[in-house]
């Protein structure tokens, strides 16, 4: 699989499922199995909780994550105690998560483990840096795209996206939804010089005026936009939105006469929570969205089977995605199966 060569160029990689049961864990296990023979030190962690033996929601089979000898991993104390492998404790974090402190360990033997990790961006970034100092060449983050999560997989340098029948049982619909996320991941990064200006901002909508100064619009959230329309454009049409970019907000903006001049800047693509229809309408009328952190999408993996029994044609789905998107698409199960036969 060619994307595995690319992986080695990066220091951090996230694997993200578009929906539960889109084969993220299988994808992760596959990536790990392929990295087994490389001489790189790999570490594995997760955003929040993952790796449960049984999926908590749908009770469908969910494979555990299989680590090979010498791999490092970071998980909470509670999950560490439930490990199915022998491992050496390397460090224990000072901060605690809801599942206890985070344990950094190295697998002495291959085996299975449940992963959990830091819950917000700053801590994920700190953890990746810390692991690098401990000699880790590549940190793999088991990520989730969640409205509720403060942690975003976009902080990693590279990403693999897992999609599948669980997202939609209809191929055109599945392609459309996947393409939307793909388009968001491709959102352009802003000028690096501007980035530090926005880093510390935690709330509100801020304008970037012509002289490059950032100004508070006085609007604390996109939800307040209805009452404060007049304030929005006082400093120009470039905005940094600290929170989520919602449907309502884009809907409002696309109907403004300045829409073709509007540029929204957001932390990363996971902050865009609008419906694809609204987003595309906004873009069609000339609006733009840019991000502080852009990640490199290496590949998309597909799981043609959905938990409620739909079974899509793997080749058809792969072809449909590949024609639309400029990124390699793989059915991991098929590859694993083929390998096992051969």
């Amino acid at each position, binding site marked *: 699989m060619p994307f595995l060569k690319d992986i080695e160029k990066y220091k951090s990689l996230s694997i993200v499922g578009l929906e539960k049961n889109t084969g993220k864990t299988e994808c992760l296990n596959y990536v790990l199995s392929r990295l087994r023979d490389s001489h790189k030190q790999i570490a594995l962690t997760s955003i929040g909780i993952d790796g449960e033996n049984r999926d908590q929601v749908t009770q469908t089979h969910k494979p555990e994550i299989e680590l090979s*000898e010498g791999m490092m991993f970071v998980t909470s*104390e509670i999950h*560490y*105690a439930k490990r*199915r492998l*022998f*491992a*050496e*404790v*390397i*460090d*224990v974090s*000072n901060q605690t998560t809801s599942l206890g*402190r985070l*344990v950094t360990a*190295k697998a*002495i*033997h*291959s*085996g299975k483990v449940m992963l959990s990790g830091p819950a917000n961006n700053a801590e994920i970034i700190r953890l990746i840096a810390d692991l690098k100092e401990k000699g880790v060449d590549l940190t793999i983050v088991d990520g989730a795209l969640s409205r509720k999560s403060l942690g975003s997989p976009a902080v990693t340098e590279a990403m693999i996206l897992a999609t599948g029948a669980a997202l939609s049982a209809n191929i055109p619909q599945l392609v459309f939804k996947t393409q939307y996320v793909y388009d968001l991941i491709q959102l352009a990064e802003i000028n690096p010089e501007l980035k530090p200006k926005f880093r510390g901002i935690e709330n509100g909508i801020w304008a970037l005026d012509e002289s490059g100064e950032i100004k508070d619009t006085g609007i604390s959230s996109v939800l307040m936009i209805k009452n404060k329309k007049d304030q929005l454009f006082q400093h120009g049409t470039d905005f940094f939105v600290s929170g989520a970019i919602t449907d309502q907000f884009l809907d409002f903006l696309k109907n403004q006469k300045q829409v073709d001049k509007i540029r929204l800047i957001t932390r990363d693509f996971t902050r865009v929570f609008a419906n694809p229809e609204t987003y595309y309408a906004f873009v069609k009328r000339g609006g733009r969205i840019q991000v502080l952190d852009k990640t490199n999408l290496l590949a998309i993996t597909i799981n043609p089977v959905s938990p409620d029994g739909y079974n899509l044609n793997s080749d058809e789905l792969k072809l449909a995605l590949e024609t639309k998107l400029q990124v390699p698409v793989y059915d991991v199960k098929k590859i694993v199966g083929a390998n096992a036969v051969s």
Partner: protein
Amino acid sequence: MQFRKAISEIKGLQYLAEELDLKSPMGKRFLMDTDMFCSEAELNIEYGLLDQITQAVKADQKVISDIQSKLSHLREIRGSVDNLKSNLVLDDVELFEIKSFAMNCHAVLNLQKELKQVVIELPNLSGLIEILDPQNTGIPSFYIYDDYSLELAEARKELRIAKSTNGDSEIKLEDLFCKAQEIESKVREEICTKIRSFASDLEIAIRKLAHLDLLIAKAMQAIQLNFNRPELVKESTSYIGMFHPMVKHELEKQNKQYQAIDIELQKSVCLITGANMAGKTVVLKTLALCQYLCQFGFHVPATSAQISLVDQVLLSVGDEQSELSGLSSFASEMMNVSKMVEESKKHSNVLILVDELARTTNPVEGLAIVNAVADIFYQNNIRSVITTHYSGLNSYFRKLRVKGLDKDLGDKIITQKNINSYMDYSLVEDNTGEVPHEALRIASLLGISKEIVEGAQNQLNKKASKEEIL
């Protein structure tokens, strides 16, 4: 009195505690749990240690910063040590923490040898390290090593071979894993039994390292802020060049100078008078702060100091939250003062500091209260300071007056911003019992509404002419 409680009463103390560069979690707890020193001998031992560390900080900066780096890696292992003591089996994470703690402790022990003298004797934990580092790697990471048991090594080897051959069924692998895990648990139990004898040494080490951390932080703070070791005496407490570090820091931020003051407190009452904005309250708060700093083993903010230890510092500065208790500010002050009087009648060894006693009531009764309270402190030889604005204080009380504004300022324009540079904060002995009448002058300097100042001046003039007529 514990430090924890003292900082809730004295803001200046809390400020200094927050500024202390403590590296370890136990250092912080140690400070909070510190009891006030009430014995000269004990405090002198503590000061002796602090002197040694201060010298080391000045002479061997490198070693001290290495020690601090080791201290910063310490983790709170109290829970694990308690588990160990109560015969529980520790998990790998706890064993890792104990191992890494022991290694850091050992490193500090060795680093201290590089100093002129070892300041804090640490228990030798090399026996513990040997057990937890069977391969003698010197790395703090931990697991139940194969070296502990041949049986475990065999079981793990078997599992590894089974995994790599791939032919074995899941159930077989699971069996092998469980078998190895079982042996591992047994070995872990044995290790815990072996290291149990180190539990009390670990407890001592936690306390000693915390103490060392605190001493280094205190020494560095004292050097940075120009604090000095006070001499412990029986009679008069006296300060030369005393300052309030927090106020000084604030003024320095505004490019202003802080005027340090000299003061001596005998075993009797002392009244401080002076104009508004003359720094009486700051004097009082600094006295409280210095007394606490000294008795918690810190150096004090003064060029030199002689301090007589007390069992208790009683302070009333009138900014307490009386609303919460449902009392008026007068009532809550009186309750507080009543407690002070009770203590003084017991001839307790206390330092009593009262700011603007009875300020919230009428001056006639107010003065009477001041004289009455001061009299009780006077009769009982209580080291005490009361600040007041009232004139007509009993003549036998010792009185200090803040010099205040220069009488002759010429045509210099004084504002709220620069009043500080024209105010002479030094204290002088004053036998008149008369209090300077500068309130109106200062009020007008502050630029408050002219109507108030002129109106008040008229009132005074009227009163004066009436008295003349009479």
